[in-house]
C-alpha cells in the first residue's frame, strides 16, 4: 500500500491510472485489504484530484471507491466521509458512458448497506442524474443505473418518494419492454422496491401502465426476471383489496400460477406469497384464485420443495385460500392438501416457523371444513390440539346428515372417536358426546364392545 500510494501522484497519467486500478483490484478481493486501503489514507488523495483528470483515471478511481464501499457499512461510511460522494456525482455528469457507469456502480454499492448512507447519496444530488443515466442508449449504463435506483429506494418510503419525484417510474416502466434480460431484472427489482413501501407508491407504479406487460416478463426464459416480476406483482397486491382486484381482473393470477408451475426452487417464493396475499384480502378474491386453478400448484410446491421457508409460504397461502367459507375449505380439502399439511406439521425435523404456519393453516381450514371424506383420514394421525377441531367439525355436521352418519360408522370413524381419551368437561369430550348422541345406544355400545374385545385379544397376546 505504501508503494502504491506515491504512484498515484506520478506525473505520467498512465501510471496513475494503473496504480488506481491495482488498488481497486486489491480492495475488491478482500475486506481487510479494503480496510488497509482506507487506513492508508489513499481515498482523500484519489478524490481530491478527480475533477481535472481524464476519463480513465475517473473510471479507475470510481472502481476503487466501489471496491472499498462494497464490503461493509463502516467502510462505506469511511468512503462517504472523505468527500467521495460529490466527486462521484461530478463523474455522473461526465460525457463518457464508462465513467458514468463506474460512478453509478460505486454509488449503488454505497447506498446498499443502510438508509443513512442512502440518504447521504440522495443528499449529494445523485438521483436526478441517475434518472438521466437511465435514458442513455448504452445498455450496461442503464442496468447499473436501474440497480442503483433500486438500492436507494429499498430502505424507506421517503427515499422511494425522492426517487419517484425525480420521474423515474415512467422511464423504468418503458424499459420493461427491452429484450435484454439483465436490464429487465434490475428494472423490475427497482419498481418492486418502490412499490413495496406504501399504497400511494404502489398506485403510482400501477398507473404507469405496467399491466399487462409485466405478465410477459413472467414468461421470460431468464429465471430471475420471472422472480423479480413475481416480486413486483406481490408488492403491489399486498397493500389493498382494490389493487389485488385490479391484478386479478388483468389476469395476473393466471400468469403467476403458470409461473409457479414452471419454476423450481426459490424463484417460486414471491409467486406463492402473491397468491397468499390476494386470497387473504377477501373471499371473492380467494374464490378467484381457486377458480384459476391455483390450488394444485400450491400443493405441488408443498410436496416437492425442500426448503423450509418455501414450504411455510405455501402452507400459509393455502391457509389464506381455505379459511373464508366452507366452499373454500372444501375446494382446498378436495385437492388432498390436508394430509400433507398434517404430515409436515408432525414432522419434527422442520423448523419452528414451518410448524407454526402449518398449524395455523390447518386450524383455519379445519374450522370451516364440512367435507367429511377429507376429514376422515386425519382422524387417525392427528395430535390432540388438531383433533379437537376435527371432532368439532364432525359434531357439527353429523347431527343433521343421516347418510354421513352411516358412512361414519362403516368407515370406522365412530370406533376411532371412541378410542379418543378426553378429560371430562373439556371441549373434546363435549364433541364426542354430541357425536355419540347422534347414534342409538346399541350402536355405540357394540362398537365399544368390539373395541374392548380387540384390546383384550391384544392384551392376551402380550
Amino acid at each position, binding site marked *: 500500500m505504501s508503494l502504491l500510494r506515491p504512484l498515484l501522484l506520478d506525473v505520467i497519467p498512465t501510471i496513475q491510472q494503473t496504480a488506481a486500478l491495482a488498488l481497486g483490484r486489491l480492495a475488491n478481493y478482500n475486506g481487510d485489504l479494503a480496510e488497509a486501503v482506507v487506513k492508508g489514507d489513499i481515498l482523500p488523495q484519489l478524490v481530491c484530484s478527480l475533477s481535472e483528470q481524464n476519463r480513465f483515471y475517473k473510471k479507475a478511481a470510481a472502481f476503487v471507491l466501489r471496491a472499498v464501499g462494497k464490503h461493509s457499512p463502516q467502510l462505506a461510511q469511511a468512503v462517504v466521509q472523505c468527500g467521495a460522494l460529490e466527486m462521484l456525482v461530478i463523474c455522473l455528469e461526465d460525457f463518457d458512458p464508462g465513467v458514468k457507469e463506474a460512478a453509478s456502480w460505486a454509488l449503488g454499492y454505497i447506498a446498499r448497506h443502510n438508509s443513512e448512507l442512502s440518504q447521504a447519496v440522495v443528499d449529494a444530488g445523485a438521483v436526478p442524474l441517475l434518472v438521466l443515466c437511465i435514458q442513455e*442508449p*448504452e*445498455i*450496461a449504463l442503464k442496468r447499473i443505473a436501474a440497480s442503483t435506483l433500486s438500492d436507494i429506494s429499498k430502505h424507506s418510503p421517503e427515499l422511494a418518494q425522492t426517487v419517484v419525484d425525480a420521474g423515474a417510474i415512467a422511464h423504468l416502466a418503458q424499459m420493461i419492454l*427491452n*429484450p*435484454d434480460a439483465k436490464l429487465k431484472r434490475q428494472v423490475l427489482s427497482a419498481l418492486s422496491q418502490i412499490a413495496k413501501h406504501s399504497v400511494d407508491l404502489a398506485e403510482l407504479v400501477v398507473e404507469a401502465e405496467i399491466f*399487462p406487460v409485466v*405478465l*410477459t416478463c*413472467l*414468461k*421470460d*426464459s431468464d429465471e430471475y426476471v420471472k422472480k423479480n416480476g413475481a416480486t413486483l406483482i406481490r408488492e403491489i397486491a399486498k397493500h389493498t383489496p382494490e389493487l389485488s382486484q385490479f391484478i*386479478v*381482473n*388483468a*389476469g395476473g*393470477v*393466471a*400468469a403467476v400460477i*403458470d409461473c409457479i408451475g414452471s419454476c423450481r426452487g426459490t424463484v417460486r417464493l414471491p409467486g406463492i406469497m402473491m397468491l397468499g396475499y390476494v386470497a387473504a384480502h377477501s373471499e*371473492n378474491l380467494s*374464490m*378467484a384464485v381457486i*377458480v*384459476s386453478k391455483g390450488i394444485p400448484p400450491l400443493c405441488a410446491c408443498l410436496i416437492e420443495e425442500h426448503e423450509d421457508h418455501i414450504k411455510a409460504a405455501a402452507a400459509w397461502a393455502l391457509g389464506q385460500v381455505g379459511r373464508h367459507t366452507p366452499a373454500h375449505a372444501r375446494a382446498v380439502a378436495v385437492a388432498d392438501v390436508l394430509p400433507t399439511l398434517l404430515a409436515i406439521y408432525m414432522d419434527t425435523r422442520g423448523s419452528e416457523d414451518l410448524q407454526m404456519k402449518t398449524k395455523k393453516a390447518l386450524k383455519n381450514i379445519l374450522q370451516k371444513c364440512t367435507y367429511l371424506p377429507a376429514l376422515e383420514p386425519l382422524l387417525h394421525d392427528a395430535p390432540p390440539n388438531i383433533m379437537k377441531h376435527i371432532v368439532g367439525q364432525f359434531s357439527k355436521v353429523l347431527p343433521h346428515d343421516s347418510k354421513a352418519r352411516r358412512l361414519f360408522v362403516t368407515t370406522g370413524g365412530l370406533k376411532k372417536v371412541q378410542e379418543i381419551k378426553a378429560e371430562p368437561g373439556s371441549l373434546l369430550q363435549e364433541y364426542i358426546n354430541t357425536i355419540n348422541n347422534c347414534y342409538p345406544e346399541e350402536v355405540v355400545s357394540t362398537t365399544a364392545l368390539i373395541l374392548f374385545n380387540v384390546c383384550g385379544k391384544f392384551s392376551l397376546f402380550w
Partner: protein
Amino acid sequence: MVIFIQKWWRGYRSRRYFSKLVETAYFIMKMNFYNEMAVRIQKRWRGYYVRKYIHNYYALKKYLEAISVNNEIVRNELQDYKEMKENEEKRKDLEKKEKEEKYQARKMHYLLSTEQIAGIYNSPFRKSPDPMELLLRKSKPLSHRHQQTKSPFDYELYDWPTCKRPPTFSTAQPLPPIVRQKPQGPFRDTTEVLRQRYKPLEPTLRVAASINSPLEKAREEMKSEEWRNSIHDNEFLPFSSYRKNQKYEPSIHRTGKYSQETYGTKHFREIQPKKWVADKDFQTVLPPIVLFEKFGKTYSRAGQIV
C-alpha cells in the same frame, strides 16, 4: 248523602282511569301491529338489498366465470409469446449455424472436385455427391482481404435503442420478395450482375503498399525509438543558431527615422509627464521681465559714451 257523592266521584275517577287504560292498551296494540308489519316489509327489503347489492350470488358467479375466461385468454397469449420467443431463438441459432457452414465452405473452396480429380466430398463410390460438395459448388471463394472484425459490443450494447439492427420481435418470417417481370432473353441474374458491377477494388499487396514502404517503416521505427529514449522533448539546438534567437538591439542613432535625432540638439532630458506636479511643461520662452527691459534705456545718460 256524602257516600252518594263519594260513590259517584269514585266511579267517575275509575271510569276515567279505565278509559285511559283502555286507550293505552289499544295504542300499544296498534303500535305492535304496525311494528310487525313494518318488520315484514323491512325483512323483504333487506333480503332484496343484500341479494342485489351486497352479496349478489349470480353476479359473483358471472364474475368468476369472466375471470376464468380472461385467465384463459391471458394464458393463451402468454403461451404464444413464449413460443414466439423460442422460435426466434431457434431461428437465430439456425442462422448462425448456417453462416458458419457457409463461411467454412467458402474458406475450403479449394476442396471442390474438378473434371479430372474427384474432391474428398465427391467420392466415386457414392451414388450422389455429399451435401458439402454441393455447398462448395454454390459458394464463392473467399478473398484474402481482412475480414472486418466485429466487436462483441456491437450486438449487445447498441442493438436496441440506436436501431442498428431492426428489433426482431415483429414478425417471425421475412417478407416475400417483390416479384418483378423477368426480362425476356438470355440475361444473367440481376443480383449477380450488380455484384460484379459494384465489386469493390481488391488491390494486390504491391499496389496497396506505399512506395517507400519498408523505408518509411524503418524511419518511423527510428523516430519512435528516439522519442522513447530521449529524456525531454526539447530539441537540442546547434551552437551556430545560439545567437539566432537573440534580438538585435540597434544603437540610438540607428533606431527611429533615418534623419538625425533631435535629442542631443533640440532637447536633452527625457519627458515623464506622469511625474509632473502641474500638467504644464517648463516654458522655454519666458515673458520679459520689465525691469531688465529697461536696462540701458531708462537710466540717465550721464557718463555714457554717446
